[in-house]
């Protein structure tokens, strides 16, 4: 069984490689050292305080939050409808539609960014928050479709048919049966598109109008000067934000569906 032990050790090393650098960011964010680098000289929250008093960062955070929420609302709505069509119906041209829906993933984001930017310029629309939003919607859409589609497959059709045969209208059936059953899938899509939008930098740097920064572009701009300890603190906040939120979301969704199962049984 020595072979298996080697595989286990290699796996642990790969996981360390994936997470150690991020752990170091979080560690340094709490470092009291005046340059925020090694050696670590004690625990302090001063960099978080500095962050809170930095107007540019607070503004960037608000922009990212707004952008993420709007992106996820729009692309989850569009993506869920499309996923429903893909799972529930057979129609001519389904394969083409399916490749169209995932096309934004297969095209390099840089090319996508250039195309959308030039199109808007051609229409003489200036760079704006709206362009940024549209860009984020188009490249998060395929992820929502894929995630929601994958989870929709497991919802059984006969529950809906039972509701219909008991006299519910299609609309009633959708709101009373389908939507509650779909909710975990929809929430997964929402969280996924939010995180992708919140993290994006490749397209955002092309689309953002002058003066507007999101958190990633703000970090990028700060990196060009020097690595300041505030960046580590901002990184720590980002990690907590984008990791804790989805984990919390999944936990709530799981508890909700568990509670529903229980009440359905009694």
């Amino acid at each position: 069984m020595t072979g298996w032990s080697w595989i286990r050790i290699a796996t642990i090393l790969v996981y360390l490689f994936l997470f150690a650098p991020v752990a170091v960011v979080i560690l340094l964010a709490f470092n009291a050292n005046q340059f925020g680098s090694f050696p670590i000289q004690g625990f302090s929250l001063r960099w978080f305080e500095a962050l809170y008093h930095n107007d540019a960062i607070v503004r960037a955070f608000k922009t990212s939050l707004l952008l993420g929420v709007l992106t996820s609302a729009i692309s989850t709505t569009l993506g869920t409808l499309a996923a429903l069509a893909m799972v529930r119906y057979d129609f001519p041209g389904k394969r083409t539609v399916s490749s169209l829906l995932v096309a934004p993933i297969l095209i390099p984001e840089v090319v996508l960014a250039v195309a959308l930017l030039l199109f808007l310029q051609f229409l003489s629309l200036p760079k704006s928050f709206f362009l940024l939003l549209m860009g984020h919607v188009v490249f998060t859409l395929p992820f929502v479709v894929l995630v929601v589609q994958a989870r929709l497959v497991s919802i059984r059709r006969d529950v809906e048919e039972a509701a219909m045969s008991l006299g519910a209208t299609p609309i009633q059936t959708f709101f009373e049966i389908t939507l509650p059953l779909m909710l975990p899938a929809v929430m997964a899509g929402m969280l996924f598109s939010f995180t992708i939008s919140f993290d994006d930098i490749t397209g955002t740097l092309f689309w953002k109008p002058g003066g507007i920064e999101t958190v990633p572009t703000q970090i990028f701009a700060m990196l060009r000067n020097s690595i300041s300890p505030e960046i580590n603190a901002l990184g720590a906040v980002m990690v907590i934000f984008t990791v804790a939120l989805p984990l919390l979301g999944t936990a709530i969704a799981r508890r909700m569906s568990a509670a529903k199962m229980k009440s359905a049984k009694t």
Partner: protein
Amino acid sequence: MAAESARGRRQPWILLSPSLATISFLLIIPMMFIVVYSFWLRTATGADQVGFYLDNWQEVLTDRYYRDILFQTFQIAFYTTVICALVGYIPAYFVANTRMRSKTLLLLMLMLPFWISYIIRTMSWINILGSSGAINTFLIWTGAIDSPISMLYNQTTVILGLVHYLLPFMILNIYVSLDGIEKNLTEAAQSLGCNGWQAFREVTLPLSFPGLAAGSLLCFVLASGTYITPLVLGGPRDAMFANLVFEAIVTQLNWPLGSALSLVLLALLGVLVAVYSRYLGVDQIAKSFR
């Protein structure tokens, strides 16, 4: 009854129309525009000359500068992909074959990097390899060196950053294929006289090939299109092709040239995706979302 089925036939299109409209307006039509734009000309005054000029294409396709950077980009993407495949196979194998409890935890942890910001993960290496980073501080503390050694800002660190970013994609794709393999196939091979390594080489490895291929395609395409990693972890000579695009479009505002450059990148990666989907199908990539 006929009306009913006509409605049934229309229904999927009603559900699909918002998404398809979005993709047409924000992706398909803009893509056509960059094709048109690439034949225009940026004049010395800064205005775009509408027409059919081949100048951009001639410049992009014949200038050594572009060819060298294109070559360098694919070289970096290739190394990244190979390292990801080699390094990623083992944990994927472990996760697919381990006990249920650690499996759930390891899978969840594998999803975590997707949620951690790409720019944070990239810049985190500065804390490790930088002149006041973890390694240098440790080496100075032990007395092995007197002054920090410079490890950052070269092609190796660009590849390191890309491997760190793309490895989860690779592991997940390989895992999906490994997990789909029936356990009794390897047992059968072993009962027919294969040893463990032979069973792996003859049964498991070939059956996991679709996942390996899907992961490699994703890694290669994503690595080829990146311009942030070389800006953060690379030196001045480590520009990748997407940096040229960014330079042309955002800095120089030379849209016709930028269009031609992005079409070259798109065409080359498109060939790769087309070959891949001809033999293996795009569905394999979608599997990792299940």
